[in-house]
């Protein structure tokens, strides 16, 4: 069993290495993750790694175009845009990881319990999942956001509440697939409790598939979160965030179009990275 999962993961990785697109995605994702960790750690330690203080005003002239001293230019308050973009990385990447992580855990439990218990509980859990799944995510997230009030953690909670249904569906299908395999039957016959079977065998067996889906999904969460942030529902000024920057710099489209374009482009690059990586994993998993 253990070697089975290990073998699966190894096979997937081997096929993955053949795909150039997946590798590009991997490089982008690793870059973003690394930057996020470095920024988060340095913020905790109180070390400034950005070229300028991202909050400090008038570190340069207002609305200066990109130059050597300010690689991405400056905003209306003379703040360095590059520094503001760098400092926002842990926020956007972190929310992607956190929302997907929670969705995966919740979905894993709901889906596999539904599959293993069956009957009325299965029916009830899956119909509930269907209904939540059919809700328009962005709009509901906004409604939740409005009642909780704006803020990074509130946006995260709003997304977590509605993000798990596809994971529950996936987990149920996968759990049903493994539930008829011999080692599970054997565990059941040996008198192991359902909870123990789930934790010891099922979660392990279906985790690879779930993780592949999750990788593909992180980009979508970042995309959606950037939308909420763009609408001003996330960080409070003067804290920067990619989506928020596009939104608030939109007023200077004629005089300084790069201000909005650059953070928007950064979001797109990050999402492309996760999509390529996730696609690579998925193809490798399917090809096996």
């Amino acid at each position, binding site marked *: 069993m253990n070697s089975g999962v290990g073998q699966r993961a190894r096979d997937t990785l081997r096929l993955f290495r053949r795909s150039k697109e997946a590798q590009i995605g991997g490089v982008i994702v690793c870059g973003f993750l690394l930057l996020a960790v470095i920024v988060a750690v340095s913020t905790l330690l109180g070390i400034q790694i950005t070229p300028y203080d991202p909050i400090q005003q008038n570190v340069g002239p207002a609305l200066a175009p990109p130059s050597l001293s300010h690689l991405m230019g400056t905003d209306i308050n003379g703040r360095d845009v590059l520094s503001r973009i760098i400092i926002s990385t842990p926020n956007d990447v972190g929310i992607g990881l956190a929302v997907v992580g929670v969705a995966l855990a919740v979905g894993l439990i709901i889906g596999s319990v539904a599959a293993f218990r069956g009957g009325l509980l299965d029916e009830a859990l899956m119909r509930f999942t269907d209904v939540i799944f059919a809700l328009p995510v*962005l709009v509901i997230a906004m409604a939740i956001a409005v*009642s909780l009030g704006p803020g990074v953690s509130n946006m995260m909670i709003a997304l977590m509440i509605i993000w798990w249904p596809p994971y529950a569906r996936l987990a149920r299908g996968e759990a049903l697939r493994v539930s008829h395999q011999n080692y599970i039957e054997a565990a059941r016959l040996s008198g192991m409790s359902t909870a123990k079977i789930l934790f010891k065998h099922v979660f392990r067996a279906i985790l690879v598939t779930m993780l592949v889906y999750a990788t593909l999904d992180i980009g979508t969460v970042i995309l959606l979160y950037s939308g909420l942030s763009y609408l001003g529902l996330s960080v409070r000024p003067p804290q920067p965030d990619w989506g928020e920057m596009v939104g608030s710099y939109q007023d200077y489209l004629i005089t300084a179009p790069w201000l909005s374009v650059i953070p*928007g482009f950064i979001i797109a690059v990050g999402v492309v990275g996760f999509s390529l990586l996730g696609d690579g994993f998925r193809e490798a998993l399917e090809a096996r």
Partner: protein
Amino acid sequence: MNVFRYVLRRIVFGIVVLVAVVTMTFVLSRSFGSNTVAAWLGKSASIHPELAALYAEKYHLNDPIPVQYYYYILNLLQGNLGLSPSRGFQPVVEVISITLPFTLQLAFFAFVISVILGISLGVLSAQYHHKPLDTSIRAFYLAGYSSPPFFVALILLIVFALIFRMFPSGGAFDVALTPPTVVTGLPMLDSLIEGNVSYFVSSLRHVILPSLALALVTFGVLTRVLRSSLLEVMHSNYIRTARAKGVDENTVFFKHALRNAMISVVTISSLMVTWLITGTIFVENIFAYPGMGQYLVASLAAQDYPGVLGVTMVFALVIVISNLAADILYAVVDPQLRLG
């Protein structure tokens, strides 16, 4: 399962989803902290306490929760979504009836562009599998669906409206023109009926950039699904049989393969519609297009709760209806469901 029962089940499911949305918005609307009335009326609640009392009375905001829920549903069924503080306390329903047609217009054009782009690129991509054209198409749709709608909209706005000045940068029509008399409620359709060509042309020029922006972030879903299902179908036995019979390659591709691959496109189209509808929120905001999305953004900024929740429900309704339409279409095109 026969088609009728299938459709009936989908309708019941749609209603359940709507009830869930309504319940959710109700719970949210009652959880704005201690004072619901203050939250609903904004600043004016403290300035005009007598107005606040009247409002609480009218919407039964001081009654027990189940009673409130009853009146909430009753109000909804009567088309009463409350008053919108950000619009001078105009009824939310009125604001929505003015803005919804514009959003539908925009979504319609975006849908048409998206389907044309999505299907033609999907076909090309499959026909030129692993050739440079396929690779560039894949890069194009990946960039499209990975980009936030507001980013694509801004790029189009900067390039085609601000730099080249080919299209207007905002609005839904030239304000100097007289709008058509209301027949269907959709201004562009009405102007066609009335023969008001200048209004129609002006509307068309205003709708192109926003709908193109929306289409660019959504067509990729179609292209991707169509491409992969075409590639799968082309390797199936019945295609090999058709080829073996000597059917020419174009007939094989368009008559046998494409028709079957389209089933998966119909399945995914409901997802596409959801993206389109929610995308209007950003695109309308950037192009100052006077639709429901722009009203939602303005309501968010002004903490106009009735506005936000009203638009949320109408968006949900539109999405449920379009998903239902996609399900019914699916029943029509999939022979397994039709004949089985």
